[in-house]
């Protein structure tokens, strides 16, 4: 038998007895970052494939929501900082080893790029739009000539953005539950899936909705594969990672994860989109909302569970 006690009584706020450095702000941001990555990826993709008119919601309308989503996400990140007045320090240096540094810089590219993208399409969507100043109008007309380049830019940066939301967590080997290379691809695919779900909600074209539903079906299948693969990897790994997996296989996260994320967030939308493909009439709002809510809960659970998994001082486990 072995019993560990901190006899000097360490109780640093936010650290003990269980790490709670990151609260609601980080999962909200990771979720919105994922949705944005999904929206921008498909906007760029369908523009390049020459389907801007056919898939109007994907290419032109959904990106209109991106700046607001990014702003809310960035506001959440800002609220999470504890030394807020120094946030600009992020932009005085590029640190290749720090995923948070690339995240900050990639957002510096994605945000203006999304604004430029929207600007070049806004007159298509709002025919009475008036730029008021002539130089703005001229700049936008000039930018319109670069739409193809911007579309490629969107595809590349959105993939990096979607991937980084997972790598941000997986780079921490101190938290065994996060320390898996699967997390990057998992968050990317989940982001693309929530992005398609969002576009499906706002699209009015039946053809577009059905195409996105088919894409989402594939994305959900990949997500299910990655989740199973992630747990297989944990169970085949070291003690701390086996322990991390057991938090979801009988431990405190079991019910919430397998009910809300796996069943309601993946399996149910998968079945309903598959039935839709077979010709059954299912309102698109059902799979789309389930995917979005499932994606949000996934991020909350992953951020929380990572902080509960550790190498040392397993006091809570000792009590069980």
């Amino acid at each position, binding site marked *: 038998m072995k019993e560990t006690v*901190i006899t*000097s009584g360490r109780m640093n*706020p936010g650290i003990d007895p269980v790490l709670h450095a990151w609260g609601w702000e980080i999962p909200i941001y990771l979720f919105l970052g994922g949705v944005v990555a999904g929206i921008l990826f498909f906007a760029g993709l369908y523009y390049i494939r020459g389907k801007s008119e056919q898939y109007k919601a994907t290419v032109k309308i959904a990106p209109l929501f991106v700046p607001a989503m990014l702003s809310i996400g960035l506001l959440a990140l800002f609220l999470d*900082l504890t*030394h807020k007045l120094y946030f600009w320090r992020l932009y005085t240096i590029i640190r290749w*080893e720090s995923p948070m540094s690339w995240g900050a810089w990639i957002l510096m590219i994605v945000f203006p790029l999304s604004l430029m993208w929207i600007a070049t399409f806004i007159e298509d969507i709002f025919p009475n739009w008036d730029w008021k100043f002539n130089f703005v109008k001229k700049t936008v007309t000039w930018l319109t000539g670069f739409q193809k380049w911007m579309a490629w830019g969107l595809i590349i940066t959105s993939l990096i953005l979607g991937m980084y939301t997972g790598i941000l967590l997986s*780079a921490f080997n101190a938290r065994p539950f996060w320390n898996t290379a699967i997390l990057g691809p998992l968050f990317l695919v989940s982001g693309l899936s929530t992005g398609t779900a969002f576009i499906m909600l706002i699209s009015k074209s039946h053809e577009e909705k059905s195409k996105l539903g088919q894409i989402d079906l594939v994305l959900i299948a990949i997500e299910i594969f990655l989740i199973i693969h992630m747990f297989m990897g944990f169970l085949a790994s070291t003690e701390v990672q086996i322990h991390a997996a057991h938090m979801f296989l009988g431990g405190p996260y079991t019910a919430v994860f397998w009910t809300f994320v796996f069943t309601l967030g993946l399996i149910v939308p998968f079945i309903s989109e598959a039935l839709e493909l077979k010709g059954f009439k299912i309102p698109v709002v059902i799979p789309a909302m389930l995917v979005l809510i499932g994606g949000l809960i996934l991020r909350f659970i992953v951020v929380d569970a990572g902080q509960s998994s550790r190498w040392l001082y397993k006091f809570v486990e000792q009590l069980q």
Partner: protein
Amino acid sequence: MARYAMAIDTKRCVGCADCVVACQTENNVPIGYCRDWIVQDTYGEYPNLSMEIRSERCNHCDDSPCVRCCPTSASHYAEGGIVLVTHDECIGCKACITSCPYDARYVHPEGYIDKCTFCIHRVKEGEDPACVAVCPTHCMIFGDLDDKNSEISKVLRSRKYKTLIPEAGTKPHVFYLL
């Protein structure tokens, strides 16, 4: 170049926590926080018990995940491999807190991230860190690993020792003599 490290003799440590109090006083650590702490591992079953007592703190690792993940380079290696946080470069993103397998860091009430500094201000003056200086059993040794004749180099050549979770790959520089 020096490489500072600490060796703590678990056979001598009685867990009095003088080091914890000395640190709090020396570094003006806010009330309710600590940069070092005493861990007591008890093995066996009554009446056959054995105990290992350790004074723990930031391990000033050679390959520090906190330095690697810091987006602003506020967390950095100072002289002698001491890991420090520059307060006015720190944005308080807490990436370093989550990256530390030893949970050695915390958010200072003033917003920046804080932790053990190996009392670099004392070390620069040629003194021992406060925790080492006050230890009543002289179980803690601070010194330069690059100096083959330093007390710490000698003791690490002659005694068995361990570091905490070396499998995390951090190359910690607080050694526990067994």
